[in-house]
Structures are given as C-alpha cells and as structure tokens.
C-alpha cells in the first residue's frame, strides 16, 4: 500500500547544490516546497573528528553507500557492463548537501565558447574539424545570458577570486578577494608569466575572509586546514548547501525537508508530472508525494535514471543517434600533467585548502589556435595545493620501486619536495558514449542500475598529450630537478580517482529533437518537470562544473517561478 500525502506546490528530488538553490529561491517567494533527500541530515558539528584521512578519504565516509546503489560500466558496446563494486574514478554524494559538502570548492565559469561550441568551431575551422561521431551542440543559451545567474551563485557562495584575464566578461568582481598565495603558487605564477601565459588565483568557495551573503548568511574564513576535498568543513568556511541555501529555505517556514527518502519514480499522467513515489528508508514504507511541479536535482546519474525508470522522454538510441534521455554523457581528462621533484627545496605540502591554487587558460576552450591540432577545446593548466595527505600521496619518480627500502626512502624524501601541475581537460561527447538502464544489475529496491558506456577517444588522447607537454614546460621553468610527464592516456578506467565531474544525460538545447530540456532546465516533453544539474551540460569543459551548474540552477528557479505563475513552455 502506498501512503498518499497532501499535495504541495513543488517537490524537489535530492537536496545538494541544485536542490538547495531551488528550495531557497522558491520558498523565499512563498511557494511550499518539500525536499526529499535519500541520505541523512548533516551539520557542521558532525566534523569534530574530521581530520581523519582513512575514514573520510579512503573509506568514503560521506559518499553514497555502494552496497545499496551503484552504476555499471563498460568501455564500449561490445563488452558486458559490470557494476562499479568499489569506489574509484568518481565519488557520488549522499545526504543533506550532497557532493556540495565534500567538494573542493573550485568555482569556475565555463567560457563563452562552451555555450556555442558547435557554431564557433564551424565558424573558425570549418565543418570538417568536428569528427562525425563527436556530437557537440550549442547549449541554447549564451554566456552573456547566463552571466547574471553565475554572478548570483558566486555571491551566495562568497567566491574568493580575481578576474580570469582570458575568461568571459564579468558584470561584477568576485564578492571576496583571492586566497593567500603559497610559495609554490608564486613560483607557478612567475613561471607562467615568463612563458607569456595569463595566470590568476583560482576562484575558491573556501572563503578568503569572513563574508555575509545577500541572504544574510555569515561564514568564517578558511583556515587552510588541508582536510577539504572528501571532507566536511568544521568551520563552515567552505560553501556547502548545508551552511548557505538550505538554512535560508528553512527559515522561510515554507520548506519541509525529509531525509531518508529515496525517490524511485516520477509519477505522471497525460503529459504532466503529478508527483513522486519514494521509500522511507528507515521503515521501507512507500509514500506518494503529489505536487504541481517536480524538480529533479539528484545528480547526473539519478536525474537520468529516474527519467528512464519513469518512462519520461525518449531514451537515447546510440545506433541511430536519436532520442535524448541518456545522450552525451561526458567526463573530463585530468591525466595530462607533470610532476616535478625538487632536490633542495621543501614546501608545506601538508597544508592547503580545497580550492587553493593558480590557473591559466591560454590552452582552454578556443583561446588558442587549433588549426593544426587533432583536437578541439582544451584544458585549464593549474597548480593546486589542497593538502597532500600521506596515505594517498606518495610521490616517487617514475620507474623507481613502489615498495621496499628505496620506495620508503623516496616517498619520505619527496613528500614535501614534489609539486604537480595538472591539466583539467575538456571532454567531448560521442555518439557511442551514453547512459541507459542496465539489463542485469539492480539496486537494493530492485530497480535497474544506470549503465555507463564511455571511453576516451582520439580527441582526449591528443588533448592530454598536448597538455602534458605544456605542463612540463611550466614545471621546467619552475626549476624542478626531475620531471615526470604523462606519456599516453590509456583507456578510461573506473578504478582510479579522476574527478566527480560527470556530465550529460539530460542535456539542454534549443530544439526538442536533440535536447531534453530548454535553457530553464524545463523538460521539453513535460512542462511541469525541471531537471537541474550537470546532467544538462551537452559537453564538459576544461573547468570544474559547479559554478556553471549553480548559474543554471538559479535560472531554473526563475523559470519555475514563471511557470508557477503562468504555465506553459518557457523557451
């Protein structure tokens, strides 16, 4: 028996960054919102014992419990997809605040080029520059149109930064000044400038100074504690939905948060969503929550999976390239970097903050000429200092033993004598990279897992190789005694952590034939269903996704308010 609850204005599925932003914006305007979050509640006070590398970084304390739900993966359609049984390549959020609790806080905006990638690539290089199977498309929105919303996100989160000299035009500066510079950041800056690049202090959601945001939320400055990525912030200094948007929603009295509520289906009738069905994971009771508007903010994977499970939208068919749900899954290429070993210099590698770093974008987007290159787009080249914790960071020169006496000596010697320059590379969609339902494996409620079909293509291999050379040049300029450079990007491998920057599956655009949502994140096929998150990115850029995602969430909130008033398609 399914228990049916009274109808509300809006039900939000998943309360991380996307869900938190939507809830705060709508409740401020008087809408009644129910937020369903499958995980537990979280508080800053939970992090008293958070400086524990084993528990949080290696045992994945804050992440989704894979015994209950995971994804399956195969490199291509010819092999059998198998479950990701243990963590590796990416880490899914779970619990109040989602991955916004344990992210680094590197908060970038995509480039104007990203939003018009197909037309600009064709304009500059001609149609043939785009390989037949590379399914890039324009986003149905321009950078300038999205700018005010990204600005809003940055002001809510208090992003600390300085202008990217090669970025899109800003309507305002960052709300707080850049983070402090460590000696290695200064070295990187100097080297990059010497090579005529345009470095800048990376924008950070770890506050450089105390900050009060437009919602009246006050937060303390970052303490550079070095337990940031994969950890919760015990100071409330890292922008996290739990210390920003969620309390704002709660204060209005219009937000009802239900944790331990795992949504299994979006209910719909006659082309309209009518609510959701979820399970109370503490009792196993099935509950129906009717609503006028349904908003999916359950991250890339469950946004896509819930649509497929609920029979909404046309599933993508990779053999013909038609259909939209599951289309254009993309990722990122973070391997193209260089590691420098210094014989006589020591650094405070143990200290840092999740978003403490320098970057330059001279080789990102279309900021450089690709005429003679076998790839499009590029990567942000960066040096970060987020804190090298000792279990996960044992830096040794390539080719030296990985255990035994020599290993011990090298890893101890180089612990504070190693610097890394990384390239965070864009990833282009491909006709045969997609998400669908797995035919075999199920979650603990018996629903099919999501299946990922993905690999690196020539585009990514060429890009990574090119970037590794650029990183090496900078490292040389910085004076490293020995440099290890990435040689070949192998096949995509789900066992090694790369980034939790998964994108696509419910992509946006200006045409219902080739995209699933419009530029308000509203489903083309269902007016009162909004799907918000990096699931709407038609490709992935050479930047971390959340600054852009946050902008899209604020725009979606505006769209939902419009829809609530007058109904219909917004775009």
């Amino acid at each position, binding site marked *: 028996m399914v228990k049916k609850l009274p109808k509300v204005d809006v039900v939000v599925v998943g309360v991380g960054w996307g869900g938190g932003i939507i809830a705060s914006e709508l409740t401020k305007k008087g809408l009644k919102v129910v937020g369903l979050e499958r995980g537990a509640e979280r508080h800053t006070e939970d992090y008293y014992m958070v400086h524990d590398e084993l528990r949080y970084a290696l045992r994945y304390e804050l992440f989704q419990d894979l015994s209950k739900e995971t994804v399956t993966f195969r490199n291509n359609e010819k092999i059998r997809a198998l479950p990701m049984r*243990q963590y590796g390549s990416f880490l899914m959020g779970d619990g109040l605040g989602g991955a916004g609790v344990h992210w680094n806080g590197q908060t970038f905006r995509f480039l104007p080029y990203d939003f018009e990638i197909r037309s600009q690539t064709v304009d500059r290089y001609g149609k043939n520059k785009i390989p037949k199977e590379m399914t890039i498309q324009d986003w149905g929105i321009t950078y300038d149109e999205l700018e005010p919303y990204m600005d809003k996100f940055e002001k809510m989160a208090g992003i600390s930064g300085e202008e990217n000299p090669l970025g899109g035009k800003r309507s305002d500066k960052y709300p707080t000044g850049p983070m402090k510079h460590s000696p290695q950041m200064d070295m990187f800056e100097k080297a990059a400038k010497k090579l005529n690049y345009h470095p800048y202090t990376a924008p950070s959601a770890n506050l450089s100074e105390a900050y009060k945001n437009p919602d009246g939320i006050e937060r303390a400055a970052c303490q550079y504690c070095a337990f940031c990525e994969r950890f919760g912030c015990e100071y409330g200094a890292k922008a996290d939905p739990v210390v920003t948007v969620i*309390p704002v929603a709660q204060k209005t009295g219009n937000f009802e948060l239900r944790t331990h509520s795992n949504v299994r289906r979006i209910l719909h009738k006659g082309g309209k969503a009518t609510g959701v069905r979820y399970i109370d994971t503490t009792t196993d009771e099935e509950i129906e929550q009717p609503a006028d508007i349904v908003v999916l903010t359950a991250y890339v994977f469950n946004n896509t999976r819930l649509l497929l499970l609920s029979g909404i939208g046309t599933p993508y068919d990779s053999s013909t390239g038609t259909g939209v749900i599951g289309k254009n899954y993309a990722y990122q290429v973070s391997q193209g970097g260089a590691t420098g070993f210094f014989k006589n210099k020591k650094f405070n590698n143990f200290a840092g903050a999740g978003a403490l770093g320098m970057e330059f974008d001279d080789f990102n987007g279309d900021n450089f000429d690709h005429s003679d290159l076998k790839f499009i787009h590029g990567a942000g080249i960066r040096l970060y200092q987020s804190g090298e914790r000792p279990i996960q960071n044992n830096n040794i020169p390539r080719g030296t033993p990985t255990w035994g006496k020599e290993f011990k000596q090298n890893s101890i010697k180089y612990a504070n004598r190693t610097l890394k320059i990384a390239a965070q590379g864009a990833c282009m969609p491909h006709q045969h990279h997609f998400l669908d339902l797995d035919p075999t494996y199920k979650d603990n409620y018996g629903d099919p897992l999501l299946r990922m079909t993905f690999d690196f293509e020539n585009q990514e291999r060429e890009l990574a190789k090119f970037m590794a050379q650029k990183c090496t040049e900078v490292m040389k300029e910085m004076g490293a005694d020995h440099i290890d450079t990435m040689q070949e990007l192998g096949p995509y491998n789900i066992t090694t952590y790369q980034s939790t920057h998964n994108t696509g599956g419910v992509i946006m655009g200006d045409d219902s034939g080739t995209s699933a949502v419009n530029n308000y994140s509203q489903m083309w096929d269902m007016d009162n269903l909004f799907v918000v998150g990096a699931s709407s990115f038609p490709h992935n850029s050479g930047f971390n996704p959340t600054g852009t995602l946050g902008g899209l969430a604020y725009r979606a909130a505006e769209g939902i308010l419009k829809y609530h008033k007058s109904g219909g398609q917004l775009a």
Partner: protein
Amino acid sequence: MADENNKNEKELTEEQRMSRRRFIKNSGLAAGGLVVGGVAGGLIPWGGTKHDNKTQNAAQKETRKDYNHALMFFTQAEFKTVEAAVERIFPTDENGPGAKDLGVGYYIDHQLAGSWGFNARDYMQPPFYHGEKSQGYQGRMRRREIFRIGLKEMQNYSQSKYKKNFEDLTEDQQDKVLKDFEGDKVNLTTISPSGFFDMLRSSVLEGAYSDPLYGGNKDMAGWSMREYPGDQMGYTNIIDKDFQKIKPQSLQDHM
C-alpha cells in the same frame, strides 16, 4: 614575518593552537546575521588548556602497555607472516621505524575484522563475471577471505620454493616471493596474486600513515618521519611561508 622561519618547533606548535577567541578574531567573524558555522554555534573543535597538559605527558605514554595491540582476526601464525611481509614493504631504515614497529600488522588485523573486511559498503550483488581491468574488482570474495587465502598461498609458495615458512626466509627470498605475487608469477586458482599484493601494499601505507587511533602509525612515528603534522587545526599562519616543521598531533589530542 620572515623570522617565523627561525622559530623553534615548540613555539610554532603553540602558534598553531588557537584559542576560541583568537580563532574568531582571525576569521573576522562578527555577531549578528544568520550564523551557521560550528564554531560560531558555540563549538570549538580543539585547542584549550586541557589538551596542552596532555601533550606534556606524552613522554610517559612510552612505557605504558598498548591495549590496542591484540588480535581480532588473524591467528598467531597468520600474524607472524603478516608482520614479516609488511616489514619488507615498508622496512625499518635510517629514517625510522618500519611497518612492524609502527603496528601495521595490528592495523590490518583490526581493519579486516570490521566493515572494510566484510566489504560492507561495496556492491556485492551477483552475478559475478570476469571483467576487463578497467572495470575493477569483480570477485565474490570479501577482503578478509582474500587476505586469509593470500597468506596461506604465500606460505605454500615459500614452502614449495624454499621449503620454509615465509617468515623464516631471508629478506631477499621474502622479497622474491612478494615480487612473484606482485607480478602474477604465482599460479593460483583461488585469488589474483597481484590483487592480493596490491591490497597488502595499500594497507601497509594506511597502517603507517593513518591516525594512530586505528592501531598503526605508533606514536605518530609514521607522520614524524615524513614531517607530516597530522591533524592540525589549520595552517593560516604558515600557508604563505616557506617549509615549516611542525610537531604532529593526532585526533586523540582533540578529545
């Protein structure tokens, strides 16, 4: 502030410990508004006088018995093999203690006895198929089972090759056995030799460098060797400075 570099270790450590008042001053947190941080909410994670006394008593700890050092999972015989193997992976040298003295054997024992050993948070639903390397571990066996079989197979291999138990081999012979497991040179039908070796190796690093609360990294000696300060409250005061040596602290210091 250049003279910061010359301050001795003790002074610097004191500097790291911020009082509540000092922290709030540094962060510039003012009263009013909708306050959300744990510190502002009246909770200060660590620092204060109580804990200062505790570090002064640290020296006395040496002589005390370590009640954590007993076995939850391994048999005595297995434990001997484990201690011999981990010591080869991370040996005692002029930098300091090896895995055995760091308590890595106990660390692994305790981990296998708990949720990690049971793969409690891994997806363990059938069917089990052999997959590509890129798809990761696909076996049905749990870590504690793999470990137990792995140790047994190491003994078998040592016996068949050298007619001795692993722990009784010379260091070179032990290294050879480990290398053969690492390189899948051992023919096994039960488990993947290299899979077992990788698990062993990574748990050695975990045991050497995790917080001492887990049974390894005895007296934070693993951290001291590589000049890792463990669990400090923050590094605002040194982040923009050259390398600083800071005396390590553990989670115990914040109780």
